[in-house]
């Protein structure tokens, strides 16, 4: 079986073949809607917001306006503690642009306390911890930006750190 295709080396690709460069200037302004607006407002106020589904009898976060399980609308928003446990994590030396970093980023899925399914939480970062000490199931707590610096964004939580008394 003969297959076709012409390989270029990195040098040929970047310097030898004629290429057309185009960097589009594309911008969006996404309306965050009912549920995520509440979540982001909660973060601005230093709180993690969840939502309760009557028919499934469960509390989840991040909140949504409808339940993906039973398809009923949901409107019972609840305040959750800013603590949780590590569901899974990584020690990442590679960044979004594929460049490498010396000090690793520590992404983790945090299972937020007070929710009623496991996992129910969101993606965030860990810090103030030796990477070698991180374990699945470890109790963690949010470290917030100062109130004056919070804008209603996921980054209003700077990171999660290990709970000392745990």
């Amino acid at each position: 079986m003969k297959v076709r295709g012409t390989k270029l080396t990195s040098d040929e690709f970047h310097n030898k073949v004629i290429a057309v460069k185009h960097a589009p200037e594309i911008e969006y302004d996404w309306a965050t809607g009912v549920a995520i607006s509440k979540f982001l407002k909660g973060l601005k106020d230093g709180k993690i917001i969840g939502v309760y589904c009557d028919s499934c009898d469960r509390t989840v976060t991040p909140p949504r306006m409808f339940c993906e399980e039973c398809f009923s609308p949901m409107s019972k928003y609840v305040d959750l503690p800013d603590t949780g446990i590590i569901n899974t994590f990584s020690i990442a030396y590679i960044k979004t642009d594929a460049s490498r970093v010396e000090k690793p980023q520590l992404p983790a899925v945090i299972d937020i306390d007070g929710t009623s399914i496991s996992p129910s939480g969101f993606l965030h970062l860990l810090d103030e911890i030796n990477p070698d000490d991180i374990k699945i199931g470890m109790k963690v707590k949010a470290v917030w930006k100062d109130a004056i610096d919070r804008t209603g964004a996921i980054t209003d939580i700077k990171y999660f750190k290990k709970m000392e008394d745990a």
Partner: protein
Amino acid sequence: MEKVAIIGVGVEGFRSAIRELSYKEMVYQAAVKAYDDAQINPREEVDTFISCEEDFNMGTSITDEYAPDQLGAAQRTVHTITGDGIQGMAAAYMQIKTGMFDVAVVEAQSRVSDILTHNQITNFAFDPLYNRQFDAVYHSTAALEKRAYLEYSGTSEEAIAEVAAKNYNNALKNPIAAYGVRAKASDIMNTDMIASPLRDGEISKPVDGAVVIVMASEKVVKEKNGNPIYINGISYATNSPNFDTRDWQYAKYAKLTADRVYKMAGINDPKEEIDVFEIDDTYAFKELQHLESLGVYDKGEAGKAMLNGDLGSKGSTPVNVSGGVLGVGNAHDVNGLQRIAELVDQLRGHAGRRQISDANTGMAFSWRGVPTTAGALAILSKE
């Protein structure tokens, strides 16, 4: 032959901007209405879901990731079509016709208000190597086509202005339309020239909105005993992505699509056999060009029919009683389902002040807009 029917329709919008709901929440609202109309539970009674969307319109790569939940489709059979809603319906139609699926849901959404740089996105659809560099407003491409069509068909500017005026007026009677207004052809002729020979009043304006359609096999239709509208023929076609090889004068994609759909639906003379027409009018001239390319009128005759009053809601060939894309608003890949929603209302006799008497069959045609040459056509009937 097992038939396929539409058993539910849900519409959210259309408005120039729906800022109080996120895109997911907007689709959820449309879905809830469609499932209520069809009297089905999406978590138990739907076999397959299809979402029509494009990455750059949503601002998300692999945007189908975000499709399932708001349709009740989590952990279900679901896929995306990067095309117009009627093409999504064609995919659902084929799935039902395999005999492996009985109930299908098709969704399309438009969130133009989430996009700050719409011209840049449309420009990003042009060939990257030798078309994109001109950075012209994309309406220029439609202007090239309009001029070619005017020359080829001998259609007058007056007829095109009359099309726009008709559709804006029709939209006043349509509760889902965003751009209804009392207008005369002279008002259209007095709007700004955007790209000669195209005037501002001939160009549809963007809207946010979503449509969800529920389709079913005959078996389910009988069980539900609802208010089915049957799909007698449905298909789609593409002419050419290149400016160098496409047909500019007439809409070849419409002709190619019509050839297939008329054969499926057993249509010999669309003008005589079809009662209601919902035909893409993203630009006013497109309504006439499409009518001719679809074989409803001969070359150059659609404009004359417009001037005779035949295309009005009281005419012999009512076209875009909904207000069309000009009147309802340009919802991009939802435009086809806008057309379908109107036909379902008309054929069910639920169109209120827009109702066409004795409406038994209807035709919906969509075009994906500049710079594409992709169209999709469906023929619906009460039987």
